[in-house]
């Protein structure tokens, strides 16, 4: 593997007495698309949320592009700009237009002028096919459109990597395709992605590597053809069998 852009070592996370992550080691290479699957409660979303410290790890090390994310001297807000995140429930700002959502951080965090931010924001919206909806409020958009605006919001900051936390789980089935199409385009453009999702067909088509998690540990990781075709571990076999039943 070329030197990883994200390197997680011995990551543990407890919620009170519950151990949600019990020692995760994970390397993600630039331009790689890594899928995380596993039963609910396996810790996959928590793992994802630890990667930009939205969830504070209990112990372990996380390096992003060589920078120690756990170090006190690290400006985590600055690092988060370089790690885009997309949520299950979109989390668009309801009081702002699509363009307002996409440009807010550009203006108020990066410090760009409104004109500059608008140009970048429109380009990001165009990339997800929603330039025409720039002036719409989230409440006026379908779930699929909202999620694509959320992706544009992250993309506008030109992140080096994107985290997707079940991006299609809250969508009606007919709207899933539009979001996956955007993710395919990102992959084709060389974006590094870590995706927690139940979209197994997408994983099979687009992922470079699939990680199966259970009870806070990585049980198995391999290319999609292998993990779906010939899983090695019994727990993986049971999970895959359950999915394809």
């Amino acid at each position, binding site marked *: 593997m070329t030197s990883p852009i994200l390197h997680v070592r011995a990551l543990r996370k407890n919620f009170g007495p519950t151990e949600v992550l019990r020692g995760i080691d994970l390397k993600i290479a630039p331009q790689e698309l890594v899928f995380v699957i596993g039963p609910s409660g396996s810790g996959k979303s928590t793992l994802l949320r630890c990667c*930009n410290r*939205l969830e504070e790890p209990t112990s372990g090390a996380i390096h992003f592009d060589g920078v120690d994310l756990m170090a006190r001297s690290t400006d985590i*807000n*600055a690092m*988060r*700009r370089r*790690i*885009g*995140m997309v*949520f299950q*429930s979109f*989390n*668009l*700002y*309801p*009081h702002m237009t699509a363009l307002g959502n996409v440009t*807010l*951080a550009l203006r*108020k*965090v*990066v410090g760009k002028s409104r004109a500059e931010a608008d140009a970048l924001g429109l380009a990001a919206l165009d990339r997800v096919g929603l330039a025409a909806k720039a002036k719409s*409020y*989230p*409440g*006026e*958009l379908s779930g699929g459109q*909202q999620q694509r605006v*959320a992706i544009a*919001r*992250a993309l506008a*900051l030109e992140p080096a990597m994107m985290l997707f936390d079940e991006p299609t789980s809250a969508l009606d089935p007919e709207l899933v395709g539009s979001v996956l199409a955007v993710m395919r385009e990102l992959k084709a453009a060389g974006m590094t992605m870590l995706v927690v999702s139940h979209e197994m067909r997408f994983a099979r088509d687009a992922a470079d590597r699939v990680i199966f998690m259970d009870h806070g540990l990585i049980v198995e990781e391999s290319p999609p053809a292998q993990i779906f075709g010939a899983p090695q571990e019994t727990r993986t076999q049971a999970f895959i069998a359950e999915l394809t039943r």
Partner: protein
Amino acid sequence: MNAFLEAFFKPNLIAQYWPLILKGVLVTIEIAFAVVITGLLLGLLLAVIRSLQIKLLNALIVVFVDMFRALPPLVIVLIVYFGLPNIGISIPSFAVLWLVLSLVLAAFAEEIFWAGILSIPKGQWEAARSTGFGFLGTLAYIVLPQAVRLTVPPITNRTVAITKNTALGTVIGVPEILNQATTAQSFSGNATPLMMGALAYVILFIPVVALGRFLETRFAWRRS
């Protein structure tokens, strides 16, 4: 009917006392404006401080808020105006009324703004933080704009209710509407000045209520 008009709307008394009532209206407007501005700003500031979740400060805020919500404003006005001079602090009656009502409004406003801040879903914070906003940036650009909009109706109601308490100024001699009206009433022995005062309150506060309703629709956004 004539007797009724004589008792409440005597024309020559209206003519005689309207300048006095008008003076009272101006004083009431001055105090009300000052109270609304300082009370709401202080309330918002306290709510923001509370969101920092510093235990000691939170405890102090809760004590302050609960006390000023529990005490009748009249009691506080009397204690401050008649009590503080005994320890060498004497504040002019106008300032006492402004200070007390500001604190009362701040106490209620803090609770309302705080509830508004709490009602903003965690996902909004997370989305903002994930794009590099710090705590205060998230509060300023994402959480407060939504929270404040949500709180416009209860804040308006509470603001109207508390600015009406400017009438309490009459007991410490602030020359506001009610003070002018009761003075005129005792000189004339007729309730006409009181009716004029009542009318002045209605004329003064109906636009405020209407403004609240306007803001409510103006700041509403289409919800998903």
